[in-house]
């Protein structure tokens, strides 16, 4: 589904990613682990076209993202669900409205939105909080709303950037279970995190990056560092 071919990315003089070669298959659950600054977020941003590779290619279903016109990027993004490291929920909108917003933006009809949003909130287990504003929710709940929003347009690929970042063990486990559940329903999931114990538990494919390089690739690996 996604292939990185010898991808290099610079920010000024900083080499954020160097020679990344990686393939992610349909329906896979893959964890990208690494310390802070390793290049995890940058890797994900290359997939949504938010950042562009300086060298090498990033392919989604054999389409080179570098060749996608800027005006067509929105349509690409509608196929991808992204849970941002800094969550990015709108503080003045309720849980329901935050999820609905993403659907509105990509042109869904009102009655479709009215039908879909409760289903998605149900999936993340927060239907009872649909009228609450982000500041009335716990960190874990906010994270799950962000996941709900990323699922709103039924993406084939979900990328979660540090979704357990500020959560305690219980909440982190809940979020992780949710991602596994979404993966079981057929969505490809990429999880970027630095939480070692977390990926150790789930026994899925793990890619370890360090200083912008893949240093370890394990099919059911354990996270070492």
């Amino acid at each position: 589904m996604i292939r990185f071919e010898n991808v290099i990315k610079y920010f000024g003089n900083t080499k954020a990613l160097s020679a990344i070669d990686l393939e992610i298959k349909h329906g896979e659950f893959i964890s990208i682990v690494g310390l802070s600054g390793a290049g995890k977020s940058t890797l994900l941003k290359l997939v949504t076209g938010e950042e562009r590779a300086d060298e090498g290619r990033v392919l989604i279903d054999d389409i080179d993202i570098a060749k996608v016109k800027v005006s067509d990027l929105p349509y690409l993004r509608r196929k991808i669900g992204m849970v941002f490291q800094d969550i990015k929920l709108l503080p003045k909108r309720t849980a329901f409205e935050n999820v609905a917003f993403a659907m509105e933006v990509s042109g869904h009809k009102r009655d479709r939105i009215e039908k879909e949003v409760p289903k998605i909130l149900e999936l993340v287990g927060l239907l009872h909080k649909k009228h609450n504003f982000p500041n009335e929710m716990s960190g874990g709940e906010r994270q799950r709303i962000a996941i709900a929003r990323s699922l709103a347009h039924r993406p084939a690929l979900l990328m979660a950037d540090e979704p357990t970042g500020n959560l305690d063990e219980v909440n982190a486990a809940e979020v992780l279970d949710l991602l596994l559940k979404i993966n079981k329903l057929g969505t490809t999931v990429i999880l970027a995190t630095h939480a070692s114990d977390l990926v150790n538990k789930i026994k899925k494919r793990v890619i370890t990056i360090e200083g912008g390089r893949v240093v370890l690739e394990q099919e059911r690996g354990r996270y070492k560092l």
Partner: protein
Amino acid sequence: MFDSLTIFRIVKTGFVNYWRNIWLSAAATMVMTITLVIFSILAIVFGITQFSINQVTDRVDVSVYFKPGTAEGVIEQFASDLKKKPEVSAVTYTSAEDALAAFKATHAQDQLILDSLDELSDNPLPATVQVKADKIEDYPHIAEGIQNGGYKEHISKVNFEDNRLLIERFGKASKLIVVGGSVLVAIFSIIAILVIFNTITLTIYNRKEEVEIMRLVGATNWYIRGPFIIESLLYSVVATIITSALVLALVSKLQSSSLSYISGTGEGNLPLFYPYGQWTYTIPALLLIAILLSVASSMLAIRKYLKI
């Protein structure tokens, strides 16, 4: 490219933006209104001076008086010769008899004049030819040509009232109005552009988070830009409505008072957008100006501050 639902959402967000910063929006609308009002007043004053110039110009002609007893054939020949000149637009021949009949008709109430006319054995009025030119500057030349031309011995007098000085003054005044007014319009247009630019920039700033999320979850560029343009269009539309109301009130006042003074009849529409002289052009023209100004400034703000 957009379905109606998307357009509806863009327009709705534009209205919400306008309403959320109602005081800023009011200020932007106000500046736009002032610009349009100045423009309208300029157009009205210019229209009035042009109207006045036309009125005065219309009254200018060259009158040629013929000696009594000149044969009609000669005068007709003279008239047809004149007509052939390219600078001449109209030639009117009034025979002595016609002149007398017209004179009697206008003084039909005045028995004294009629009686004294009857006492004269000959018709005291001369045959006349009135000549009109297309251009005001051709008159002296035409008058001179007649005075020194081949019909000189039949002509008793060539009368040419030189209104050129008056017309020149009107022309100068109207030029001054256009130049001065244009400077004012330009200044206020710039102010309007700056104010709208700042207002839109502020709206963009207020909606920074929303815009970023929209972008990241797959909103098209025009879906993101649209509401800001709608917001600026609202300034134009509201300003045009206010200006139209003000100007219509002003003009209907003017029409009843000063116009009758200028034309002497009190008839006719005030030629606001000379030479069209049509009301139907006024409001669309104002709207067009307003839209150009606001779209220009909102596009500037969007290009500079809306990171897409």
